[in-house]
């Protein structure tokens, strides 16, 4: 998780607590030998170049080739509604295999929280952990009763399934996938929401960036070590957001 040559705050040892352990470890080793160092074999140069999709101008745009979904079987629930989503055309299978049947759940969970969940209809125990993030690892909130939400969920099948989340007080659409396609494959999920011109958007993880993210920024979520070029460590910007 860290490179030994990096300036290292987090992975260095606290002098007082670790010396005894290391002393003990060294006692069983010859004192003059050097630990073998791993060297990347020369054959690594022969590996095919890996061009991230976002930097590949020839990458297929899922929005142009995938069919989207159609919502059916809408049923009211105590907290919102559920519906079934079916592929609206031939599968595109562009970055995986299209999942033909999905379940949509919309829950007004609290006055300050609307939950929208789309999961495959048919999940086996063998692949459940791939699609379903266990609440024991990342918590799921509880649902309150008799919720008066500040938000409103609406949806359409024209031309394919899309949904919009609006602020009730103003009618402002804060999130809308209208005019875009939902892409849901076993190795690729994509959804697109419209944003206003010159939007002010903040957050999206840990990185060295001005607070306002700007409108041509791509954020890749892979946890990584500190970059070598700059001396910095993690800050969770979700707690650092600018006041409105």
């Amino acid at each position, binding site marked *: 998780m860290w490179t*030994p040559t990096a*300036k290292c*705050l987090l992975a*260095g040892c*606290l*002098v*007082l607590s670790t010396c005894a352990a290391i002393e003990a470890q*060294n006692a069983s080793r010859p004192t003059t030998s*050097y630990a073998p*160092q791993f060297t990347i074999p020369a054959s690594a140069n022969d590996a095919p170049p890996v061009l991230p999709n976002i930097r590949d101008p020839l990458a297929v745009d899922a929005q142009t080739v995938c069919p989207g979904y159609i919502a059916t079987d809408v049923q009211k629930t105590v907290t919102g509604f559920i519906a079934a989503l079916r592929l609206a055309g031939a599968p595109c299978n562009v970055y995986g295999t299209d999942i033909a049947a999905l379940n949509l759940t919309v829950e007004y969970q609290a006055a*300050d*929280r*609307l939950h*929208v969940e789309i999961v*495959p209809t048919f999940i086996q125990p063998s692949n459940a952990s791939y*699609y379903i*993030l266990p609440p024991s690892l*990342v918590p*799921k*909130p509880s649902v309150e009763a008799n919720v008066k939400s500040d*938000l409103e969920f609406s949806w359409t099948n024209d031309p394919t399934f899309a949904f919009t989340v609006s*602020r009730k007080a103003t009618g*402002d659409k804060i*999130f809308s996938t209208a005019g875009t396609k939902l892409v849901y494959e076993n190795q690729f*999920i*994509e*959804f*697109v*929401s*419209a*944003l206003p*011109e*010159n939007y*002010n958007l903040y*957050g999206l*993880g*840990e*990185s*060295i*960036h001005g607070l306002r*993210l700007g*409108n*041509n*920024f*791509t*954020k*890749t*979520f*892979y946890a*990584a070590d*500190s970059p070598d070029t*700059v001396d*910095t460590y*993690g800050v969770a910007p*979700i*707690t650092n*957001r*600018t*006041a*409105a």
Partner: protein
Amino acid sequence: MYRNLYGTHPSYLETRYYTTDASGNLTLVTSNEKTPGVNYTSLSHGVYLRNAHGQDVLLRPDNITWRTIGGSIDLYFFPGPSQPEVTASYLNVVGLPALQQFWTFGFHQTRWGYTNISQLQDVVDNYSKFKIPLESVWYVEDALSRQSHGLANRNPGPISTT
């Protein structure tokens, strides 16, 4: 730069600014420039995708495109209407940060490349000499794992930090 670091936080806050007319109707402001004398109001909301797989989030001039290579769509929307409410709503979902031990808030000294214990001792001694409070000293393990003549083979004894 701009690369993700240790943690992933697939969530964002968006703030929209408006001008208000006499009857209270809001008009979205899309300019980055402020007009003097105009009263602005703002509304903020938050979005959180509960997904632990690798993701690309593409901010583009007129949309946000969210791509993930696994998991599900598990979205939470927080109406705000301002940043503190959005943050509070978000924390209700993901939980509060862990409390830190008190000593972690103290002054920490770190560097790497010590070749012997005397250099480390000098650093600590200088803090004492100049009466600078020092809570912790960190050094990089590198010196220990690769050099049998390094720090670890000498018993440093207790290091005074006050």
